[in-house]
């Protein structure tokens, strides 16, 4: 239970960083080398590897945020994550394999709010010197459809 408490806290802080537009701190929730993949349940079911975002290091996650801030063009928008209780699947090599459901609403600058994404986080959570971090995070979207664009990470 105590372990799951730690994961729940990590999840909550992770989601808050995104929802509060503190995207520069988002990569710090991951290990220096890590895996971040946003994909669909359909791809996972078929064993297909390509999804919508993919990174293998914290530095690549920083690049994603840098591009988002400096290069990519998109209308101002925010997310609101609502997370389910994390489930401990197993402990492997000192890391916790966990699964957490999420729903994300997207709020456009004009006020339009929509249910943007639902799915699950399939995570591997490891301990670093300071606390817990994601060694792997696979964002498995329930739907294969994304409305307009996926700028901010999930």
């Amino acid at each position, binding site marked *: 239970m105590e372990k799951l408490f730690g994961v729940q806290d990590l999840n909550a802080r992770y989601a808050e960083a995104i929802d509060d537009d503190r995207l520069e701190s988002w990569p710090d929730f991951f290990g220096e080398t890590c895996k971040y993949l*946003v*994909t*669909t349940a*359909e*791809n996972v079911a078929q064993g*297909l*590897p*390509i*999804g*919508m*975002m*993919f*990174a293998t*290091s914290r*530095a*690549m996650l*920083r*690049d*994603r945020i*840098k*591009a988002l801030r*400096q*290069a*990519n*063009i*998109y*209308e101002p928008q925010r997310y609101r994550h609502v997370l389910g209780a994390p489930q401990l699947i197993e402990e492997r090599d000192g890391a916790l394999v966990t699964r957490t459901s999420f729903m994300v609403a997207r709020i456009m600058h004009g006020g339009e709010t929509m249910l943007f994404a639902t799915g699950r986080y399939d995570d591997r959570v490891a301990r670093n010197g300071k606390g817990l971090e994601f060694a792997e995070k696979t964002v498995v979207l329930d739907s*294969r*459809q*994304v*409305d*307009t*664009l*996926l*700028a901010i990470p999930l």
Partner: protein
Amino acid sequence: MNAPAGIRAWPTDTLTRVPYWIYSDQALFAEEMERIFRGDAWSFLCLEAELPKPNTFRTSHLGDMPVVVTRDKDGAIHAFENRCAHRGALLVIKERGETKDIACVYHNWTYDLCGNLTGVAFRRGIGGKGGMPPDSHPEAHAPRRLRVETFCGLVFGTLGSNTPPLETYLGADIVPNIRRVMRKPVKVLGGYSQILPSNWKLYMENTKDSYHASLLHMFFTTFRLNRLSQKGGLVVSEDGGNHISYSMAADVAGKEYEQAKLRTANESYALEVPELLKSVDEFGDGIGLQILSVFPGFILQQIRNSLAVRRIVPIATDKSELVWTMFGFEDDTDELHNIRLMQANLIGPGGFISMEDGAAVGFVQRGSRGAGRELSVVEMGGQGIGSEESRVSEAAVRGFWNAYRRHMGM
């Protein structure tokens, strides 16, 4: 919104002015589905690789019409309307799968994989009561069968009786450039779809608009994946409907962008992990980017080693679904496979260089609301639809409208 009576004609005698009602007229949308998507045009349905063995199916679309594509027990590919002869229910609900025959869930009418009606439940009734009159012939209302042709692993279908053979339709300029990419057995690597808040034509124009590429997509420009000053060109098919925009991988750029102080030329912008852009010249011709489109709604994309097919499904005047399928080849080395996974970051709704397209076409849809009688300006590169060396041109966009007008009789 419907176009005011009497204005649904092309407003000028050139292709350089496009009326805004063309993106929002409800009646026109329905007419496009009939005249274009179910007329004498080839629509891309799926990759052959999505029907990997006998007795498999994949659902797709001909415009807004649902279609089933199948590979029968002998390996032949068929496509037919996804509509039961009886009451019109969808015959196949799943995206893909394996089956020997198809049964409508509503009343269990059955079909073979060619789309033939093979069984009507309780056709003779039960115990001599009920059932269908002996002279009834429901087979006459069977789902319409598409003419199917495949080319280099791409499956196309048409309902038109006068659609030319596929290779003729693609044209002599386009055929070798499909062959260039689709040169080996394909392996599907992933898929997703993007809901575009716009008319289907705005996305096709966007694809054919080589002028916008390095102006809207800063990521592209900054990392010299594509600058208009890079060597490349624009090839437009004879009637304008199909096109290729390409550029060489090596940047021979001068300082045109910097001198013009464009928003997109931020030299201070550098990646911590430039390996993201690492690529190999897998086609051996130095071409780093090739975007190829086929009227009305097909795109074949090579962006470095990121390969994908995209097809557009019109949903409403202001809503479309863009279905992406990423692929590599069966004989890809691990290195090339990993490069494709990494470069997938460039494309799709979350792609560094393509996320803006979904927003941009939506901006036009929203911006032109209420501008029905006004005209947009499509005059870069002059008035023609011919191929050219410069990609600072809207020739392929004008080509699209040339083909559109021909199909619509407008």
